[in-house]
């Protein structure tokens, strides 16, 4: 187990190093000079040069890269070109919306998917299964922003239970959670549909395994065998999907953020790209990469907890 952990950790650090280098290079070679963009096309060359010096764009690339990485390691992400504000604070503000939203949606998706997947697998080929399959097909087919608009229409406009958008901040946690509920549901529904289908097919595959027959030969009912012996074995693909979903939810919520006027990471990165605010783009992307790699690391750990055979291999 220790060897497994060391190996995973080493690969995590290496991935981060490679990712930071790639992000820096890609953003560097992207066309468009932030200084020129900020000053407009009619700016005089010496003004542009002055701004470049001020933004630190005139030092060699290697130094800039090292300064950037060093800054990130100490929690200093630099200063935004456009807003002239510390990037760390900008990201932190947005993260307080995006992270809870992603976790909220992930929790909802899991809570919805597990009973649905188990039900469909247990009732395979019968009404319950068809119901779940039809529902999840719909969940996958309909885009989440459409769900979002329907939710707003029903729960915000007609019933008035929730507000139609905006985020009041965390001073009042109950209110904050309430305002995140509709976006979380809109995000969770398609994810739950995918997860339920993955769980169903994993369980059905497991049902055909020899050890499930052994379990039945001991006197377990179908349901007991599925619950006691099937579920844990079916968790590996489910964990994989969960890991992918979290990464997606963290940054991919941009449309939902727009629909609900939420100040999240997705909107921040969208704005920064259109304004050539490279330092913000780099930092947010790096942060997302970090999140994805961390989630993968945690998924790997979860694999090892679920499946004892993986603790030995690496």
């Amino acid at each position, binding site marked *: 187990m220790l*060897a497994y952990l060391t190996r995973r950790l080493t690969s995590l650090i290496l991935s981060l190093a490679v990712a930071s280098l790639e992000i820096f290079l890609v953003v560097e070679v992207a066309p468009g000079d932030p200084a020129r963009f900020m000053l407009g096309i009619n700016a005089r060359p010496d003004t542009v040069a002055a701004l470049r010096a001020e933004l630190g764009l005139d030092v060699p690339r290697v130094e800039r890269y090292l300064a950037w990485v060093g800054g990130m390691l100490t929690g200093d992400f630099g200063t935004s070109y456009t807003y002239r504000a510390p990037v760390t604070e900008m990201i932190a503000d947005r993260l307080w919306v995006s992270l809870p939203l992603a976790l909220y949606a992930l929790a909802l998706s899991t809570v919805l998917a597990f009973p649905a997947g188990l039900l469909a697998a247990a009732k395979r080929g019968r009404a319950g299964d068809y119901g779940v399959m039809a529902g999840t097909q719909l969940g996958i087919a309909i885009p989440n922003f459409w769900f979002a608009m329907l939710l707003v229409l029903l729960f915000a406009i007609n019933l008035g239970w929730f507000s139609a958008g905006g985020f009041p901040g965390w001073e009042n946690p109950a209110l904050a959670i309430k305002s995140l509920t509709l976006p979380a549901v809109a995000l969770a529904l398609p994810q739950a549909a995918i997860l339920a289908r993955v769980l169903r097919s994993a369980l059905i595959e497991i049902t055909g395994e020899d050890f499930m027959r052994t379990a039945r030969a001991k006197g377990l009912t179908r349901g007991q065998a599925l619950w006691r012996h099937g579920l844990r074995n079916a968790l590996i693909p489910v964990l994989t999907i969960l890991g992918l979903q979290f990464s997606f939810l963290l940054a991919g919520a941009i449309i939902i953020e727009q629909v609900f006027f939420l100040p999240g990471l997705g909107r921040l990165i969208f704005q920064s790209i259109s304004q050539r605010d490279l330092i913000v783009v780099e930092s947010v992307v790096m942060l997302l990469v970090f999140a994805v790699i961390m989630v993968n690391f945690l998924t790997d750990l979860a694999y090892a907890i679920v499946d004892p055979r993986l603790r030995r291999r690496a």
Partner: protein
Amino acid sequence: MTSSDTAHSSRGRGGQRPPHGSERASDPTTLLRARDLKVTIADHPVIHGISFDIAPGEILALTGESGSGKSMTALAVMGLLPDRANATGSLTIGDGENLLALPEKKLCTLRGREMGMIFQEPMTALNPVQTIGRQVSETIRIHTAVPAREAEIRAAEMLARVGLPPDRFPLSRYPHELSGGQRQRVGIAMAIALRPRLLIADEPTTALDVTTQAQILDLLKSLVAEEGMSLLMITHDLAVVSDMADRIAVMNKGEIVEEAPAAQLFREMRHPYTRTLFEASQHRADLPPEQPRTEPLLKVEGARRAYALPRTRPFTARPTFEALKGVDLTLHRGERLGLVGESGCGKSTLTRAILGLEPLQGGTITAFGQQVSPDMPAATRAGLQVVFQDPYGSFNPRHRVRRLIAEPLHLLSDPPQGRARDEAVAEALTAVGLSPDDADRHIHAFSGGQRQRIAIARALILRPEVILFDEAVSALDVRVRAQILDLIADLSRDYGLAWLFISHDLTVVRSITDRVLVMQEGRIVEEGPTAQILDAPTHAYTRKLVAAAPRLPEIGKIST
């Protein structure tokens, strides 16, 4: 144990009576009674109304080829038939109700308590993510109200009973930490944890090595003798049950064609099918006489192969496992060489090394004077062909037979095209007893034996001088196996083919090789003429192998 059941005074099976007791007196002691058992799968009949009895403490062997319905019979008794299957007739245990009429809920209370079952594949029959202690104690916990702690104590007792004492095999072990034989013992412990009256074993030793097989068979025998269980033993291998079963029932196409006490069955063999099976199991291929040895085609000298294992702790050197510890082997032109040994002895590694699929860490392999290695020239590779064990897994299901057989042709510098290619395929198919028309079909249209013929055709199309047969007949039914062995013998006669025949089955090796090598833990421990080695082994390991191999009673007593 069972109360009297005199309703069934007549067995109605034409004097084929179990050896226990006589007529009526024996009836109350019938444990499992099957009457007119019929099974259909998706309305297609697979068992056509069979009847049999098992007395308490009796071992009944149900034998036959694949598809004969023997496993379906076992699953019908357990109530674990596939979803689309339907069973009619009557199956009773003791004075209980007809199992086939019981609701699923009631059956669940009987499975594991009244009847336990052991399956063929110990590698997959256990849940990989649960400890063995938990899996054995589960049988106890779902049927009785004992506390978890006590169930564990009883599970430990059961594991000790099947030869896995808790000091060496703690309950916290996971299945992947055990060998195949040990896993099968865990499977047996789960099945007998509540001492059911009926134990069903479906090919319990087919996936095991001969020495392990002998141990598991001994264990089953002692369980029957000491715990008073009845055993329904399903096997395709007559030799396995010949000195174990009290009675043997031979199944063919969903019917029991002959049933008799074991000794009587082997003596009389009333049904022609029984005799066919028996003869096929000890079939000797008609191998053309051995030619004097000429030049060596294949030479393995001091071959060493080590695999790096995962580190046990960070920043230490990776431990290695030596699969080949210096193997020497010479195969001459036209020679028929055998290689025997148990799983894990290095047979497969050696095969892969000879095929140039594995690099060596020491020693050399030369074929036709050329060095064999993973990057050897295609021409050398073309001379070494192989037939694998699994006729189901070794073909791409989406390709037609033509393409499958013609595949090795790309090794030639100037592969035949168009007509010439088709002719080569047709010739290879004809050589293995198939029709050239079969080239346009897909592999799923063929039976196991036909697939193995296609595998041989694929190996033959390059006219190699050497073919490696890696357990090439192990997955086949005895009658098909006999045919394939004959076909291989013909290849020696017609093409002067030399082969290395790798098998765990000593009977097969005896039938198809002149010389044999015995391999143990990466070394060749004994070699010599096949008959001499198998009849008078000198190395202790060979002696153990030969002693453990199941043997059929002498065929000489049977009139032909």
